[in-house]
């Protein structure tokens, strides 16, 4: 082999075997060959690097979607600062709580990996609905959280999170939008259009009437007739808007934070829900920030039913099920570890 090239080496299956350590004989042969031809070290190493790097790039491309999801989870759950610890002794109350609560099935499935949702390949229109049995909480592809009341449904466009963030609501839903300034989030229902500007709100849309309660941020409420949009109002936090007919200009009111909080915790149902969503749902319903340490929240699921329960009760049951403890690090921050 006088003129050794990278190309020449790659042509030989035994050299590939050497690079990927697939055949002991070949490994031995090429190691010896290199010792005998030190002048070719550079070429040899380059060819080896090509083969190995190709393999690594293939691995990287397989890992990438999962890595992006993991980063999004991090960004979602770690925006709060970590204040001083203040332990709460959860176990003192847990026995009574577990006995007294309306807890349905409560079990864990190890290592159930939720497949990462890739907005770009979401090709069909999605329909979510909550039947007469209970509410349904879930996350949309952009991580926006939705809590759908019984007998309500939500349709999302096939281009959701790519070209738009447009959803259609029939019934009642609570939305906590994941900020993405470039794509406004809007809910259409019963001839009204509510556009969120970085926000959490509850909306009810039944034919002929609409009710919006804004918890955080800002929303714009418009009336739609054909292609015409008529601006009705902008809401500030803790303001609500109700309209009973399409001819009515509606009524704006101020509501007590408790009113919405009470509605959110009326009923919370988890059914083999990935822990990551459970955490996000509890955060949304109780307006707290939860940090989880020492476990992979993508890998575990949780099932349970809560009705008008306090945050402490919910955390007691959840932590009992996942064999962890929780602490309130301050009024609105919880650490589970």
């Amino acid at each position, binding site marked *: 082999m006088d003129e050794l090239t990278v190309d020449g080496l790659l042509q030989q299956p035994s050299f590939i075997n050497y690079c990927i350590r697939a055949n002991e004989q070949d490994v031995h042969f090429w190691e010896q060959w290199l010792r005998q031809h030190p002048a070719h070290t550079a070429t040899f190493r380059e060819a080896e690097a090509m*083969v*190995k790097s190709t393999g690594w790039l*293939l691995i990287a491309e397989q890992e990438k979607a999962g890595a992006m999801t993991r980063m999004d989870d991090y960004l979602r759950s770690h925006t709060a600062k970590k204040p001083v610890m203040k332990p709460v002794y959860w176990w003192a109350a847990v026995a009574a709580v577990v006995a007294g609560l309306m807890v349905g099935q409560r079990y864990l499935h190890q290592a159930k990996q939720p497949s990462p949702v890739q907005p770009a390949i979401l090709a069909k229109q999605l329909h979510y609905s909550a039947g007469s049995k209970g509410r349904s909480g879930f996350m949309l592809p952009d991580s926006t959280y939705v809590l759908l009341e019984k007998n309500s449904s939500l349709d999302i466009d096939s281009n959701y999170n790519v070209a738009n963030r447009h959803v259609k609501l029939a019934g009642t839903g609570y939305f906590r939008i994941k900020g993405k300034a470039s794509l406004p989030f809007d809910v259409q229902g019963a001839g009204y259009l509510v556009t969120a500007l970085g926000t959490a709100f509850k909306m009810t849309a039944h034919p002929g009437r609409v009710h919006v309660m804004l918890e955080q941020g800002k929303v714009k409420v418009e009336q739609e007739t054909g292609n015409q949009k008529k601006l009705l109002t902008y809401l500030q936090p803790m303001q609500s808007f109700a309209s009973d007919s399409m001819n009515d200009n509606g009524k704006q009111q101020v509501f007590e934070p408790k009113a919405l909080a009470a509605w959110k915790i009326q009923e919370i149902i988890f059914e083999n829900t990935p822990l990551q969503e459970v955490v996000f749902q509890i955060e949304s319903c109780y307006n707290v920030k939860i940090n989880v340490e020492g476990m992979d929240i993508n890998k575990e699921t949780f099932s349970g039913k809560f009705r008008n329960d306090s945050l402490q009760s919910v955390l007691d049951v959840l932590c009992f099920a996942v064999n962890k403890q929780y602490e309130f690090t301050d009024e609105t921050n919880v650490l589970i570890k």
Partner: protein
Amino acid sequence: MMQEDASIWRSFCEGDESSFRDLYSKYYSYLFVWGCKWLDGEAAFVKDSLHDFFIYLWEKKGNLSREVHVSRYLLTSFKRRLIEQWGKERRLTDIADLIDVSEEADRELELFDARYALIQSALQSLTPSQREVIELRFVHHKSLQEIATLKKASLRTVYNLTHRAIAQLRAAVGKKNILFLW
């Protein structure tokens, strides 16, 4: 391209989450391969370190220099952190030698960049079935015989397919002979 990097970098430094995601997405595979090169294929460790590295960047965004050569900065600082963590994990004492910041290391960056571009375009040129055999061979370290059994195909078929796939890779590599860089 570099202009684009610079502006993504600046808005990330100012706290823009979507620029940060763009940066991660854009450099993920590049840094992954770079890390594997330094740890000779410890892919699981590289994967975790890369995640940690970007979290570190996100947390330090306010203190990062706005004017950097983005790819160069990412390569050198990821390498430094990766090797430090690896040293800690393995209780190695002499890791300083590995974290080389000399001119030699500069050359290494250029060489890596050129090699990565070649491999990336070579992989893109493969058909799905060619890519699959390359994956089985290069990632899962299967022999030709094992691939034949797995795919319920004759050894001859697998041999031909692999041969064509590697020829395709070689063609892409051959177009720009990387050895001129040495």
